[in-house]
């Protein structure tokens, strides 16, 4: 707890590009005040959103954590802290759960208790023991198996069916993160899937209700979620990200990977085009002599276009297969990949829908510590908002929240009943 009585939330991201730590807390208006932030390059300890070198990741996180805590200006007992961490990667999957309750009350009115019971039934999916249920969101409800509604409380029916969106992650991957957190003195951590965290920070209330596809185009993977009527219709992960674009350039044009990565990150294509150049000059040393290679900018554009178009087309195909395309009214692109200038144009072309680049809204405080453009930090900032939204609902602050989290049923209920409210932050 801070001196003002508000709980300081710690958020951690094990990203393919960077490992970062944030300390933040909500203000009276529901905005997020960033107290401190620190980021370190992942140095190949994380690949496609998954930790592959536990010791290296631990060392990097320790550095970032110490710097961030130093920024707070006071010492904390980590074991008493609430810590949330972002989950991403191909081990994250989702299923739809369906649960039904019969309404015996004479007035046939749907109550909150019945909704909770239906949801409780819906979440009881038979899944592999390797998977952990990390988040549950309501998708929609059916009254008498026919009438679809998103808020059934108060309506009349004989039977209520809840359809929920359950996000699973591999237990071993989650345990790896928790081991690292325990090593650093935290008691436990709570996972949040990246695009759900993004949704809290970058989407407006209208976007949450009108059908928005939110894509987090990260360095290693591309995660997405489709929000409709404040519920979750679809989510998923593609094992391709900005690093693939850089790798494609590197292979196609015989250039070092780091050069290509920098080329993308610094939007060199657009800069050189604005200068009226049609090729890039690259110095190569061969046999003791230097030679200048002239590589057409169109070649860069072609390689980048092919990869991005494929990535977005794969997302579109997944949504088409789920018959979810008609529910989308707009697309929001965030994450480091959103900074590629051509990305939103290609996405607009592929989806045939308006696209905007999303960055965290209503955030104040120590923003100078963010060294990259803001869309790169949408998820970690959203993570704080996500935690704050749950915190605000908890009757006894952090401890209450923790109790709620420990109790799967309560946690589920809190998630479900407060998602809509929380997303409106």
């Amino acid at each position, binding site marked *: 707890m801070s001196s003002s009585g508000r709980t300081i939330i710690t958020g951690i991201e094990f990203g393919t590009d960077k490992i970062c730590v944030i300390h933040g807390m909500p203000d009276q208006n529901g905005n997020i005040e960033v107290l401190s932030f620190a980021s370190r390059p992942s140095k190949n300890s994380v*690949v*496609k959103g998954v930790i592959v070198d536990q010791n290296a990741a631990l060392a990097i996180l320790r550095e970032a954590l110490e710097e961030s805590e130093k920024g707070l200006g006071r010492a904390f007992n980590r074991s008493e802290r609430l810590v949330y961490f972002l989950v991403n990667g*191909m081990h994250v999957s989702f299923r739809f759960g369906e649960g039904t309750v019969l309404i015996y009350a004479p007035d046939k009115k749907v109550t909150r208790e019945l909704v909770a019971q239906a949801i409780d039934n819906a979440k009881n999916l038979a899944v592999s023991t390797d998977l952990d249920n990390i988040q549950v969101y309501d998708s929609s409800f059916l009254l008498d198996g026919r009438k679809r509604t998103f808020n059934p409380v108060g309506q009349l029916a004989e039977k209520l069916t809840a359809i929920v969106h359950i996000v699973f992650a591999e237990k071993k991957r989650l345990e790896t993160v928790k081991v690292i957190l325990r090593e650093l003195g935290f008691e436990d951590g709570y996972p949040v899937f990246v695009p759900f965290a993004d949704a809290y920070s970058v989407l407006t209330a209208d976007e949450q209700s009108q059908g928005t596809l939110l894509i987090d185009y990260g360095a290693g993977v591309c995660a997405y979620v489709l929000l409709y009527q404040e519920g979750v219709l679809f989510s998923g992960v*593609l*094992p*391709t990200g900005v*690093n*693939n674009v850089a*790798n*494609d350039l*590197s*292979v*196609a*044009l*015989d250039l070092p*990977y780091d050069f290509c990565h920098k080329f993308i990150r610094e939007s060199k294509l657009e800069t050189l*085009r604005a200068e*009226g150049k*049609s*090729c890039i000059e690259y110095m190569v040393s061969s046999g003791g002599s230097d030679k200048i*290679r*002239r*590589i*057409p*900018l*169109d*070649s860069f*554009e*072609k*390689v980048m*276009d*092919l*990869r991005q*178009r*494929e990535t977005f087309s*794969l997302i579109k195909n997944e949504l088409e297969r789920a018959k979810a395309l008609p529910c989308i009214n707009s697309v929001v692109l965030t994450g480091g990949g959103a900074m590629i200038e051509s990305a939103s*144009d290609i996405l*607009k*072309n592929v989806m*045939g829908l*308006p696209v905007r680049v999303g960055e965290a809204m209503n955030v104040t405080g120590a923003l100078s510590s963010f060294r990259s453009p803001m869309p790169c930090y949408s998820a970690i900032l959203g993570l704080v908002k996500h935690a704050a939204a749950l915190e605000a609902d908890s009757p006894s602050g952090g401890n209450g929240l923790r109790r709620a989290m420990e109790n799967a049923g309560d946690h589920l209920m809190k998630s479900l009943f407060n998602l809509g409210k929380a997303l409106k932050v």
Partner: protein
Amino acid sequence: MMDTTTNQSAGLSSVPLGKALVIGLGGCGIRILDLLRANPRAGWLVTLAVDTDGDVLAKTRADAVINASADWSPRSNAGCGGDVIRGERAISHERANLTAHIKDFSLVIVTGGLGGGTATGGVRTIASVARAEGVPAIFLLTTPFSFEAHSRRKNADDCLQEIVPVADVVLTMPNDLLFSTLPPDTPAEHAFAMAAKEMAGTVAGIAAILRCRDLVGTDFATFMRALNKRRAACGVGVGFAENSDGLDRCALALSRMLDSPFLGGKEALKRADAAIVTLTGGPDLELGEMKRSLELAADVLPSGIELISGANVCDEAAGSVQMTAVIFQYAPDSKPEPAPLRPGRKTVKPVVPPVEDALPFVSDTRDVVEVELGLPTYDRGIFEKQPSVRFHDVDLDIPTYQRHGSSIDKGN
């Protein structure tokens, strides 16, 4: 019939009068452009010739010329010799020049012949410039004859595979179709001249369809809606008649339109799913004439199809009428064809032994055999040492251009 494909692009609108640019790309494109220049009804179109061959450009009648000269690429001012990479490099070098020409127009029509170097290599750059400038672009491209070299047809196919996702509308016209309506004893020179003239007429016809919102409007958005982002076989017919041709000039224009080789004949009309028909006339175009001719056109099309009619009036068409029709037959599965995941794997026809050598009463039901031509070599780059993460059985760490078999100019 031609193949068409559309992509939706935000901000596409109708084309104001006099704001369309026709780009002739390569030798074939410039030939078409010159014939278009000679067509008085196409006088409102601005033409731009783009080529790597200085001799061709010296003779063109186009309004503007871009000599694709790349000082950093080997160049002799005499074309790129059918080399797609050299063509691509030369045109991409002129990007700034192309942007300056394209940016003030509301529609760009690009015409050229695929299979060679300049047009095949350059269309992607023009599509990219048009997209960057937010100018809708239609590509009217011919594909090589079936008797031409395999490499030319492969160049054309590869180019189409790349251009379709990035262009707004692509209409490809097989050269074979051009000559399907001509008798075999037609002199070759005459046949080619006819083909270029027909192509020029088609360019003018397409431009006329999208020209303005004069009387009954058709515009680029209508065109896009008719295609509905679907792949479709497409036919274009253009019929022209003057007052001096007879009493019922509109019926005559309709009849000539139906005889256009690019329309694909009356059988193609019967199979159409959608059609855009426009009538362009001069200030003397009468209401009754317009109504009757559009009704006649509607009568020859099957009932129940989506028919979009339009009528324009322009001063250049005084004393004449032009009827243009674009018909669409949607492909049953109009999704873009998936890229070959294993380009090294080929299917070939078996060698059939002579009948007398074949064993009696033994029938081999196989009509094709698959021959393994060795595993394709892919370079996964930085992901080489990492385990493959497959998505729908595709290793997405393999560069996309390798899986699609696209050629990339590495520079020099």
